[in-house]
């Protein structure tokens, strides 16, 4: 019973949503799901947030490695909850929007969260350089193709690309790097993308059916599937 009901729920709602696409009176089922999901996610956050606090409080109590930083995490979390839920430091008071200009909540977002987000994003420049360095040591045919294509597209987006192949005659202008880059993006790249996307579509159909039919059930804590 405990195992059967969740499987039945998955099957029933899955089948309902599949058929709702073809039955006009049921077309809003997909929108309703988005509504449900947003609400459930907020309730679930109590579990997640509670877990975050429990982990760090435990680390603090047991003086595990790096425990002082757990104080910072807990303090940051508590601070944002307090100023956000009770709108402390909000120029418009409790009735104003929580993200009102000048509110402590928004100021912390602007001067703490935004620089942190931007900097993490900026780290990608360093990581893409290290990944490119590794790709340059192409050891097989596939990696070589990846490298050459990346090189052409990269050069094609800079003035250097045009400079390097400016000697190519006009009748063969497609071999100039910027034009070659455009052609690669419009033709072979498109072909590869299509093959991957078609495969993904079919993979989703297959996996969704396995979930709906109960062939796949480990996420329900049932490993007998």
């Amino acid at each position: 019973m405990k195992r059967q009901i969740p499987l039945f729920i998955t099957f029933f709602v899955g089948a309902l949503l599949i058929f709702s696409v073809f039955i006009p009176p049921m077309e809003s089922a997909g929108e309703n799901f988005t509504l449900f999901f947003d609400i459930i996610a907020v309730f679930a956050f109590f579990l997640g947030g509670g877990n975050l606090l429990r982990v760090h409080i435990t680390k603090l109590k047991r003086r595990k490695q790096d425990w002082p930083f757990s104080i910072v995490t807990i303090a940051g979390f508590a601070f944002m909850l307090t100023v956000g839920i009770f709108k402390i430091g909000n120029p418009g008071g409790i009735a104003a929007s929580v993200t009102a200009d000048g509110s402590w909540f928004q100021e912390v977002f602007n001067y703490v969260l935004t620089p942190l987000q931007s900097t993490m994003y900026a780290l990608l420049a360093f990581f893409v350089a290290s990944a490119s360095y590794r790709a340059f040591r192409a050891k097989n045919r596939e990696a070589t193709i990846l490298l050459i294509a990346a090189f052409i597209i990269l050069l094609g987006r800079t003035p250097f690309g045009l400079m390097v192949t400016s000697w190519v005659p006009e009748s063969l202008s497609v071999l100039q790097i910027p034009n070659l880059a455009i052609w690669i993006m419009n033709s072979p790249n498109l072909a590869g993308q299509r093959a991957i996307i078609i495969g993904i579509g079919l993979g989703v159909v297959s996996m969704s059916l396995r979930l709906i039919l109960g062939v796949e059930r480990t996420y329900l804590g049932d490993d007998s599937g």
Partner: protein
Amino acid sequence: MIIQKRNKITKVHWLLLLPLLICVSTPLVAAQSGTSANPFDTTLIVPDTAAVAAEPVTDLTVADHRYDHGEKLDLTWVPSADDPPVGGTVVGYRVYRIADGSEPVLVAELPPGTNHHTDEGTSADSSYVYFVTSVTTSAEYESARTEAIVPNVEWLNFDKKYLFLLALIVGGSVVIFIETARRGKKLFVRKIAGLEAVDDAVGRATEMGRPILFIPGILDMDDVQTLAGLTILGRISRVIADYDTRIFMPVSRSLVMTAGRETIKAAYQTAGRPDKYSDDMVTYVTDEQFGYVAAVDGIMVREKPATVFLLGAFFAESLILAETGNYIGAIQIAGTARPAQLPFFIAACDFTLIGEELFAASAYLSNEPKALGSLKGQDVGKAIAMAVIILGVVAVTIGEAWQVGIMNDLTDILRAIFSTM
């Protein structure tokens, strides 16, 4: 023996529940009745002797919109004679609706030149009459009214018949092959390198005494890639439980935390080691994309996992995670269905599951006939796609280049079948 920490409601949980309880305990105000406020100014402009004149529209007809549940009606008309591109007096049209004999309500304001409109505010239990006015700078001129119409509810959308047919063929193939496999027929599936390496990757972590890190992507349970990652986790967890290897699974969404715990716990129970399971194997970090990545990077360099699985939906952070894993010398198996992130995984990881291989992985790893049967169904879909591409390309090439009628007809049929509605 590890004493399993039971979940219980702590003071922390009550503190978080407090604002929620305050909000929902307030009595609800009864829903307002009646129609919603009309955003348009509904006053008809009455023409006077000094007004700029225009002819009303003609041949105004109303028809039921196909394949809806009574919420749409289609209107067409012949534009006013004073609506030429240059020099006309009409500056626009207004569409008015009369529901069940009540007062006219303005439902649309349209630019000059328009000759049709779909009203999406109707209901199947009311009768409607329409008229359209030609609007000038000082007045509007009413057309003849339509006959009363009650919208129909259609129970099936026949515009999507080909989509239904294809879903039936592909889905039916999956079901048939699952059933065939259940009856004992052996199904061949070729080797997928990344998945063949899973056992060795877990074994490596066990031998080195270092943990495994599993990252199920950064999206929530409403994304199909996250579900794919969790189904693979189910298979990998069995191996982990058998080998008694440590696993860390930091997650970015609370629901994924819940599902991840259920998955790993079930694996340990099946392996006969329920006491080895701990909820601390799966921990919530933050919903913020880069906050999560910062924390996971920290875990990687401090815990130094021997094996990292990156399976699910990833965005820009894919490269940060993969490069950090590479830096610590972990063996990495990655997979995502986002084509834009696959190149970074290819460059930084040891094995990458490309697109549909992510969705096939759990079936492949289970090695169970009924799961493998679903992979055959995928192949049926691919075979259909390949056949249609060959047929379509040949037909359209011959038809277009040499104007062969039958080939053009075939192309039209194929393109119509595969058009999406």
